[in-house]
């Protein structure tokens, strides 16, 4: 693998061909926030928190760093007024679903997000797909998947597979960015019955 040189936030960064901008930044100790990223999984590009700006001046464009491959001479900016504004909005959109998730609250603090900006709609799942993809890509069990589409989409376990596989695994639980909320969600649902 050949080495390439790029610039992230004014810092010269070395990367290997085939690395994404996110991986290159990580390797150089530059933090870019992520939610749906996991090093063992194929990049998903779903949460869009890891957006960065490429280029300079008028020709700047926004891409997601978890998918965009590092190129020789690339100029990357990981924080700007615009990037921060978009990240803040994304975090606020998540907080409408999971206002007490620790990971989200930490991000909210960093980006000054208001957890009450958007109308609440409790559903602890934020569609990062980590459980679904981990089960499929790493465990190769396909015990959990997405059902339906768009705003109606939710995760669901396949009972036949789950009954066989899940009791001794549960490796997806700690991956969930809103895991702590599940108890609260279930409790809330019980109380609202």
């Amino acid at each position, binding site marked *: 693998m050949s080495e390439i040189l790029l610039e992230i936030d004014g810092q010269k960064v070395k990367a290997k061909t085939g690395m994404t901008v996110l991986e290159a930044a990580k390797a150089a100790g530059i933090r870019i926030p992520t939610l749906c990223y996991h090093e063992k999984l194929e990049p998903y590009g779903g949460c869009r928190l890891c957006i960065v700006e490429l280029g300079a001046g008028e020709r700047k464009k926004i891409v*997601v760093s978890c998918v965009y491959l590092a190129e020789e001479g690339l100029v990357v900016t990981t924080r700007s007024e615009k990037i921060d504004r978009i990240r803040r909005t994304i975090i606020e959109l998540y907080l409408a679903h999971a206002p007490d998730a620790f990971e989200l609250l930490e991000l909210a603090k960093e980006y000054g997000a208001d957890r009450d900006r958007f109308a609440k709609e409790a559903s602890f799942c934020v569609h990062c797909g980590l459980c679904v993809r981990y089960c499929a890509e790493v465990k190769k069990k396909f015990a959990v998947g997405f059902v339906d589409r768009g705003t109606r989409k939710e995760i669901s376990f396949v009972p036949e597979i789950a009954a066989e596989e899940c009791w001794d695994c549960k490796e997806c639980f700690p991956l969930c960015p809103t895991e702590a909320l599940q108890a609260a969600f279930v409790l809330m649902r019980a109380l609202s019955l």
Partner: protein
Amino acid sequence: MAKINSPVELEEFRKAILNRRDPDKSCITLCSGSACNASGSAAVARCLEEEIEKQGLSESVEIRKTGCHGFCERGPIIVNNPGGVCYLQIQPEDVPEIISETAKEKRVIDRLLYTDPESGEKITHEGDIPFYKNQQRMVFGPNLSIDPKSIDDYLAIDGYAALSKALTGMSDIEVLEEVKKSNLRGRGGGGFPAGQKWEGSRNAAGEAKYVIVNADEGDPGAYMDRAILEGNPHSILEGLTLGAYAIGAHEGYVYVRQEYPLAVENLLLAIEKAEEYGFLGKNILGTGFDFKVIVHQGAGAFVCGESTALMTALEGRVGEPRPKYVRSNIKGLWNQPSVLNNVETWANVPLIINKGADWFTQFGTEGSKGTKIFSLVGKITNTGLVEVPMGTTLKDIIYKIGGGIPGGKKFKAVQTGGPSGGCIPENLLDLEVGFDELTKAGSMMGSGGMIVLDEDTCMVDVARYFIEFLTDESCGKCTPCREGLRQMLRILTNITEGRGQEGDLELLETLAETATEAALCALGKSAPNPFLSTLRYFRDEYVAHIEEKRCPALSCKELINFYIDPEKCRGCGSCLRKCPADAIIGGKKLIHIVDQDKCTKCGTCFDACPDKFAAVTKLSGVPVPAAVPEEERTIKKSK
């Protein structure tokens, strides 16, 4: 039927078809597209068959069931040849007279002709009707004369001549260069130059290459692709085969939505016949070129019209866009170079190869060449499909071809480009249609949807409607689209229902920016357009809804009241009898009153009140005047 093995054989075969046809033989063509079928075309066809039999004309009169003629407002359409007498809105009971008078005696039946609304004159020929006269039907034209189920009909109008010319007289590079030179741009939405896309695939490394037809037409009110699929499927197959030859593909797909059963039927039959004749399959026209086409029916998701989602769906997986920054012409279907173009784009290719890029580029504007088919719907007199050269003004399309707004209403805006397009106001009606021109005006060409809106349409509600459609059709993979649209819809609904607040517009603008900049695919990135373009041109309507709780178009139910003007009410009782909510208080010779607590705002009273009184009115943003006291409700005799 033995395969046609060379261009010479093809020309001989073509000549034989033409020789067998007697130009003087009576032929009744009947529009049999999905739109006309819905207006009773199938029943008319049965009557025609029966009546021809009954009148003993089976030998001398034939019927040809064609695809859509485009003038759907007035379908089903019959054209009697030779002579070309055109009858509109034909019902089964008209058929016996058409056969005995027109087909047999060559006499014109005046009552079935088109009447020019301005001059009152009857128009005999289809091409002289203003709706058709002002069009330029290069791609759509053959629909009028061929039976899509007959490959011989296609051959009779020079079908597969372009393929024959290319495979034997042009190298693959020459075909590519011709398409590049024509500057044909994708008719499906983005307007990307087709030749450039093809070239990328041609030059890309891959074990196999694919060409694909995007026939997942899903914009509300748009059906131009359906009309070509149903009415002239061979033109698409010929274009696709030419593309395959140019880039070196041997397999092609048509991704067609399941809601188009007649399109699928005609397409499958066309493929079968083309294979039988040797225009598809192994060793096409004896040239050694192999190409097969597979039809894939979609499962009903708007997002599958997006290129990467379509390819993912073709692979048998959930139709969601891919996040990769690699163009699908380099790595597409099964990670191989894949050219995806929409139906209309492919149908243009045989024309370009047949007549040359120089011929093609004489039509259109600097940046947009050729013609474009638009689906003209909404508050327009002549609903239908319209093909015009790029550069035609919106005004000409809406007034000259479309016949303007019905019911004496005032034009307000035209929504172009499908749900993620935008609304163009009256002061921009001189805009020449073209990819860049429409984008500059804050809308887009999209696939050619054109929805005309009149003064009774609330622009905030239009934005809400399209955002609702897009929310429903979002695949849900990325946050800015799934969650952003959900919130946008919520805020827009609040505004139209009178719960708008200060700061709503800023919040919507933030959400719009988030989706435009950070959504994964083109659907998400363009999803805020309905809001952005209506805000750009109709901000005052948003402000009226939010600040004054007033709907200027008097359309948003929650913001209007129905009120009977006591000065105008003549006590006729029309509204009282029709009100489904018993919300009208009145009686003989009494001024009628709307009980606001009971009123469900269905608008029945508004429609029921005779025009000569026009006493029922809509109020918005003002309090409803107090009802006339009971003792003063008796109507004095009018002068």
